[in-house]
């Protein structure tokens, strides 16, 4: 497989020799924190979007903030670009390395610095895994709400960089709603605290800007997250439907009725089958779609909501409704959902996960559109997604070993994104743009808007050394992309240089 390179307009050139940089790094970093041998570099060549790969020039694994700072300063001095990496579960190629840059892994900064139960907050290093925070807070009766399906592996630093969501974001918000303060290291090596331990911070809301900035503005070295009291009661309702569109309509009905469940997730037939075979969650395999609707809060509140949810689901044509009878059953129902991606991974050699988000009233329409595109391209698709938020995750099944299949999958994906934009949605709800959707940014934003993004980038990283070639396309990339668009009358392939 050829290596994915940044667009020529986004490539950073520098003259420093590898051994020179390594020697400078070694003044503050142990040998074990520096990886330069090709075989040892291999595990870092891609993130969760494995269709895009590039062997990094150098991997650095600092274990302290001072070591991060030293590494950043060395790179800054020589004009060497840096790509930050958490657990590498990102699905948009945000942590794709550069063949002339440093891949800065934050996984060794993995300490929980403080759990302050009176103030309901936790201060943690960026390499702490998402789930580890809730586990550590549990003995205080608290938890961290955003729960990406990858939560056993993904890091809080990666969550901040992607503004990740999860099943419970419908009621509790995304990462951006659940963090209070960040310590970042800017590309010139300065340590800056952004936000505060209060509910808002001093000056401009740079915390908002940092969240979801995909490692382009600064390296996150500490995060203060908000913790919430564990709910007194939690219940989940499973509703089966004979028709996918009907399930989509049911979602809109629930929200319209003023009920905001803690989570409202949808799985289609293909996903139900895959998850059932893998986890035996107890899903009805004959259903065309299921909804999992979770309700949490005080006991009285959950009782009320449960009654309302069941009535709404029945009213919108569910063929079967059941309520988890025990905590084990509830956990099992969610286990199927959380394992849906790997379950589908068992069905198909490769899958390509999309992330468009649309106004909920168009769910049924867009699902139908996706089914039609699936026929058109001759590629199967499985849908499993955060329905309550209108955040779709169609998984396009393909086989990278079949010539042309990946390209077909990418075109199919591009068409889904176009469909999302056409109904007033966005190309990415929670996975980020990374390298994967960088060309599609040219569809969503005007030249002036992109120029404004570049100005923001310069305010933090004047020399453009942090994660170049990701998230925000250069105008020359868009010009090329746009020109090709007119010429061929269809979306060209992302990452042109690969072909």
């Amino acid at each position, binding site marked *: 497989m050829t290596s994915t390179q940044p667009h020529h307009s986004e490539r950073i050139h520098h003259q420093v020799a590898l051994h020179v940089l390594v020697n400078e790094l070694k003044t503050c970093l142990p040998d074990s924190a520096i990886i330069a041998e090709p075989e040892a570099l291999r595990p870092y060549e891609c993130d969760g979007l494995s269709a895009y790969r590039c062997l990094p020039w150098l991997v650095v694994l600092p274990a302290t903030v001072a070591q991060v700072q030293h590494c950043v300063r060395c790179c800054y001095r020589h004009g060497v670009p840096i790509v930050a990496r958490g657990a590498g579960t990102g699905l948009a190629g945000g942590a794709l390395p550069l063949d002339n840059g440093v891949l800065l892994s934050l996984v060794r900064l993995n300490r929980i610095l403080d759990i*302050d*139960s009176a*103030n*309901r907050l936790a201060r943690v290093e960026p390499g702490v895994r998402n789930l580890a925070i809730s586990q550590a807070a549990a003995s205080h009766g608290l938890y961290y709400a955003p729960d990406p399906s990858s939560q056993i592996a993904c890091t809080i630093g990666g969550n901040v960089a992607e503004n990740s*969501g999860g099943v419970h*974001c419908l009621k509790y918000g995304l990462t*951006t*709603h659940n963090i209070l303060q960040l310590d970042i290291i*800017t590309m010139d090596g*300065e*340590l*800056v605290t952004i936000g*505060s*331990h*209060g*509910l*808002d*911070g001093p*000056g*401009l*809301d*740079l915390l*908002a*800007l940092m969240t979801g*900035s995909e490692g382009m503005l600064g390296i996150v070295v500490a995060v203060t997250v908000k913790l919430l009291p564990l*709910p007194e009661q939690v219940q989940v309702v499973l509703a089966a439907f004979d028709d996918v569109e009907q399930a989509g309509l049911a979602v809109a009905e629930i*929200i319209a009725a*003023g009920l*905001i469940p803690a989570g409202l997730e949808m799985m289609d037939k293909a996903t139900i089958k895959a998850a059932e075979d893998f986890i035996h969650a107890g899903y009805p395999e004959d259903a065309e779609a299921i909804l999992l609707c979770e309700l949490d*809060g*005080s*006991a*009285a*509140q959950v009782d*009320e909501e449960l009654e309302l949810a069941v009535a709404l689901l029945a009213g919108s044509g569910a063929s079967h409704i059941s309520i988890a009878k025990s905590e084990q059953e509830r956990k099992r129902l969610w286990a199927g959902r959380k394992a849906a991606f790997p379950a589908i991974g068992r069905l198909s050699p490769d899958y390509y996960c999309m992330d468009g988000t649309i*106004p*909920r*009233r168009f769910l049924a329409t867009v699902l139908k559109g996706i089914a039609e595109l699936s026929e058109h391209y001759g590629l199967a698709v499985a849908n499993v997604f955060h329905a309550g*938020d*209108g*955040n779709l995750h169609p998984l396009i099944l393909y086989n990278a070993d079949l010539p042309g299949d990946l390209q077909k999958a990418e075109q199919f994906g591009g068409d889904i994104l176009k469909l999302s934009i056409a109904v007033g*949605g*966005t190309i*990415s*709800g929670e996975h*980020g743009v990374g390298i994967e*959707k960088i060309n599609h*940014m040219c569809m*969503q*934003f005007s030249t*002036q*808007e992109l120029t*404004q*993004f570049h*100005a*923001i980038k*310069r*305010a*933090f990283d004047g020399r453009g050394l942090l994660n170049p070639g990701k998230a*925000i396309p250069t105008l020359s990339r868009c010009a090329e992309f746009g020109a090709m668009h007119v010429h061929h009358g269809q979306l060209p392939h992302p990452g042109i240089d690969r072909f």
Partner: protein
Amino acid sequence: MDSRDQTLFLQEAVQAALDSGTPLNLVGGGSKAFYGRPAVGAPLSLNQHQGIINYHPSELVMTARAGTKLADIEQTLAEHRQMLAFEPPHFADTATLGGAIACGLSGPRRPFTGSARDVVLGCKIINGKAEVLSFGGEVMKNVAGYDVSRLMVGAMGCLGLLLDISIKVLPKPDLTAGTCFELTASAALRAMTTLSRQSLPLSGLSYDGRLLYARFSGYESAVRAALQKVGGDTPGSADFWQDLNEQRHAFFQTDSTLWRLAVPPATPELAVPGEWLFDWGGGLRWLTSNAPALKIFAAAGLARGHAVQFRAQDRTGDCFQPLTGKLQQLNRSVKQAFDPDGIFNPNRMYQDW
């Protein structure tokens, strides 16, 4: 075209200001003119740019022009049993959505249902180059590009002129009811911590120096169960929360300077002389005091929070927590990234920009 859409007119006004090098003082309803450092520049009124552009109750989303009155928005929402959950204070009937977002102030419900910045989903702005730009959108989740929409919240109009704003709205609860307890300040802080750590349908938690007020919102049975669980007395005034949010409560009737401190909620009482009122379960502290500004900024900073001089006779010094070092530099650079010529609300937030 809708005659209340003033986009072109406003864009021309910004272009003219750029051409002539005249800084602008952006004015919505003028209800928060007291807030921040004194306005300078030629006033540019935004309150003609009115109207709700899009409202889908089933989507819990509304897009409105910045000059739309908060009162009009709240009335439209109420017709669909919905509300602005961040409870923006109005301070005058003229208050607009744009002003509420630019000042970024949120009411007593904030710790429980989110802030002004939390509900913003998208915005259309005019930047300092007189360009009309759109960011975010009307969907709940959107990570395409930097989150410029939320950056605008609390930026006091210094980064750009807000044209249209998309916000998330919430259903109105079936019932809202409260209780109160007579407590000392330190006991009140402890009680607020205890209550906040429980699974309760809280929608307000404040202490006015004598009484601790707890407010619950939700389904009737849930609110009743919560009231029964926590006990307490029935509050004398049903208007307490409204009076608190609009600063009509007796606490705010003072000639001293009014300060707003955002701190971690369980922070013990701060050693600054003056009168205190706690909101947000202890996370927001109102202080009336004539102590020197530096002392108050220092106390807030030490508590890992920050302070704002909210209402004062003399606003020529720092009103917002002073910034230093790289953070100050980043704030200035971001201002320059949006408004390189410094034409929007110069020095309204900080003395150096």
